[in-house]
């Protein structure tokens, strides 16, 4: 099975409100006793494309195996796509849009 490398989108009040309005509050997973996140999956090709496009982002290869430090506006765009499409499987569409 191919490895999955999530982009963690941490849920602030604004994002929570959008999820609730779309009836998607259950899509957020709990983390660290008090946080909520959307873990948007990427495969290795999508991960590499994201890291190339946004060099300030970091793949945390040592600890979490997740893509972190994407600019907030990029995460907002991915988040809005998740809400509009009602699925976490948005990375092909996102990459096609940039």
């Amino acid at each position, binding site marked *: 099975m191919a490895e999955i490398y999530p982009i963690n989108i941490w*849920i602030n009040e604004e994002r929570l409100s959008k999820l609730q309005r779309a009836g998607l509050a259950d899509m957020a997973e709990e*983390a*660290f*006793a008090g946080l909520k996140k959307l873990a948007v999956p990427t495969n290795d090709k999508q991960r590499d494309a994201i890291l190339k496009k946004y060099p300030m982002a970091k793949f*945390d290869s*040592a600890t979490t195996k997740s893509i*972190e430090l994407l600019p*907030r506006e990029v995460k907002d765009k991915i988040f809005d796509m998740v809400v509009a499409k009602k699925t976490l499987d948005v990375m092909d569409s996102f990459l096609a849009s940039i």
Partner: protein
Amino acid sequence: MTEVNNALSPHGGKLVDRVLEPAKGREKAKKAKIKLPIDGSRATEIMSIAYGFFSPVEGFMGHKEVDSVCKDMRLTSGYIWSIPITFDISESEIKAKGLKEGDTLLLTYQNQPFATMELEEIFSYDKTLMAQKVYGTTEEKHPGVKITYACKDRFLGGKITLINPPKINPPFDKYWYPPKVLRQKAAELGWKKMVAHQTRNVPHTGHEWLMKGAWFASSADAVLVSCVVGEKRAGDYIDEAIVLTHDALGQTGYFRKGTHLTSILLWDMRYAGPKEAIFHAIVRKNLGCTHHMFGRDHAGVGTYYSPYAAHEIFSQVPDLGIGSVLTLEWWYCPVCGEVTYSGLCGHDKESQAFSGTLIRSIIQDGVKPPRLIFRPEVFDLVMESGEKYGFGSPFVTSEYLAKRNPVITVPAMEV
């Protein structure tokens, strides 16, 4: 190879002290006829040599020394040393200044006399070989290799003397403890055992527990937090936030008074993984530490080194006279309901690992991390530091890089 006792503390048996009082420094400067401006990285390396952080190294390395360090991980004297300390220069600068072996150079920084160098050697070295030997790779995307390849084509070797000690600017001044000073302070506090924690990060509770675990494991009197202050990359925490938040762990009682001290080490990280771990051990031994904690992926970058490469290398070197506390990671476990040690917690599937990068990501998203993984006092201070020192951001921006208050200021000196 000469047999030496690597366990001696300081490394080599004697703390290097090559710092002159300004009056004597001025006299020495007058004898140096050739002025050579240096950059911030050379300036801080000169400080580290002169104040004894790099004992027994007394200057920038010559060809034999660099070759020995690269190929054998030893100085020519036989003492273990893992990272070359070099002074690069271009052929055109050598010609323009008329540099020749035997000269005494006046090194200037911030347009002021700063140090002298007895020029013993002008040489070339194969930078690809240096990269391969020190970093285990020749890929330029490795930040240490990038530093190596960015070196100009020639090198100067020779002993240095700091003739105009710089002022350490706030907020770093409170945390500047050269080895002699720190050893004196530890003696006054009655600390017989001190365990070092190397950091370039704002502390989350995983770091806090690493330090506390190392304190237990080494039966130490105190934890010395040694914050690396040096070259920054966009998106890193600003240096001021790192230093102040570590100090805050002691000030707000997460460490009992007298068990925790924050200090700075002026050094541009090379991300040399296991080789840098050896270097860190030697520098902290020189500071008077009896132990050094090494966690997962110490001084690593990307996937160049195995997560515990820094642990493995200590079995390949002689006793360095500083105990290595080799530790696994601390994670959050929702079953245990706490941050707990991965070597003891059996809830592997449920465990939630976290890292400094992940915490930065949470903060960048405008979310306050829960206190179980990030102390609220630390969070507040991170944000305050961003306002006070980071032009509104606790993370390094191009504005911070261009306008930040310098860590050191060289006083005016008439020569």
